[in-house]
């Protein structure tokens, strides 16, 4: 049985999806259902004191069906990330965390030095830390050494939809890692997700590719199949690449020869 477990918890889907940027809560609910995902990410933000009329996101997520993964998106320092992580833990009553420590506003690339330090601090506090990281095998190894429960290298910048920019690094990270490798960010369409899985990723995390599609529910379904197809292909073991043709039909017994 091909199971997907992180820190001893087993998930039925290798697709993890976000809750941001949907045109409405109703559209998000349909996409979540179509995706087959059983883990969704959420962000931690100040309650709007002046306008309390806004509906709560949690009214639209059945937490008996979806495991919540709070993130520290938007944090640029170890202190901010740790503070946000602690708040997320109390809001969700779960010690699981997608850790982001961003190092640059335009690319949203991680500050890996701060990321490793924050991982160390939060693991010590009992968090199950899933860090969003550069596609750098050495950084991923350091994160694992710091106690990360998985490593989540980016395929391309967040929200860029560029697909997997450095497939060789994802393969090397898979080879180096003893924890699950989840490609987080950069997926644009279903083939990108399938490709990530074919490279050996244990899972894929995405938000914009689904939320920003013309039909989010349809794209969510496409991603569900893509992740499954990619996983199956990885397990099946692809044929080697060859420069020239090899006939699929018998070369003997041809009429007229």
């Amino acid at each position, binding site marked *: 049985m091909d199971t997907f477990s992180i820190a001893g918890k087993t998930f039925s889907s290798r697709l993890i999806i976000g809750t941001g940027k949907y045109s409405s809560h109703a559209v998000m609910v349909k996409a979540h259902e179509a995706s087959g995902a059983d883990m969704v990410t*959420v962000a931690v933000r100040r*309650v709007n*004191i002046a306008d309390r009329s806004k509906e709560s*996101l949690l009214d639209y997520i059945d937490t008996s069906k979806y495991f919540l993964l709070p*993130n520290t998106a938007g944090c640029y320092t170890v202190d901010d990330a740790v503070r946000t992580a602690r*708040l997320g833990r109390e*809001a969700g009553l779960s010690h699981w965390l997608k850790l982001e420590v961003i190092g640059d506003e335009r690319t949203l690339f991680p500050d890996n030095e701060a990321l490793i330090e924050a991982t160390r601090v939060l693991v010590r506090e009992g968090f199950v830390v899933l860090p969003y990281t550069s596609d750098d095998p050495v950084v991923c190894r350091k994160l694992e050494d710091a106690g990360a429960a998985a490593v989540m290298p980016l395929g391309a910048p967040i929200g860029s939809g560029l697909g997997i920019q450095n497939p060789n690094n994802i393969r090397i990270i898979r080879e180096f890692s003893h924890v699950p490798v989840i490609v987080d960010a950069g997926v644009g369409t279903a083939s990108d997700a399938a490709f990530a899985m074919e490279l050996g990723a244990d899972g894929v995390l995405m*938000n914009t590719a689904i939320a920003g599609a013309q039909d989010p529910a349809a794209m969510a379904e496409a991603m569900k199949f893509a992740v499954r197809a990619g996983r199956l292909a990885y397990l099946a073991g692809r044929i080697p690449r060859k420069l020239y043709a090899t006939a699929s039909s018998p070369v003997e017994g041809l009429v007229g020869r």
Partner: protein
Amino acid sequence: MLPGWITTVTITLNGDPFDLSGPLTVSELLTALEIDARRVAVEHNLVVLKRAAFDGAIVREGDQVEIVNFVGGG
């Protein structure tokens, strides 16, 4: 001012000055703001509170309070 005396106190709530009748507990503050305590996390003077501590934590003049919840994100 005597302990427990009700007067107007100014706190910093989610980064902005906020006047309220107090001192009061965090639970009372959430009730006054019509916020469901089960849906939020509260940081009081840079210490994140366990939900069980909401009834006991007293908000006083000059305190810093952050109230957060989950929003959509990736």
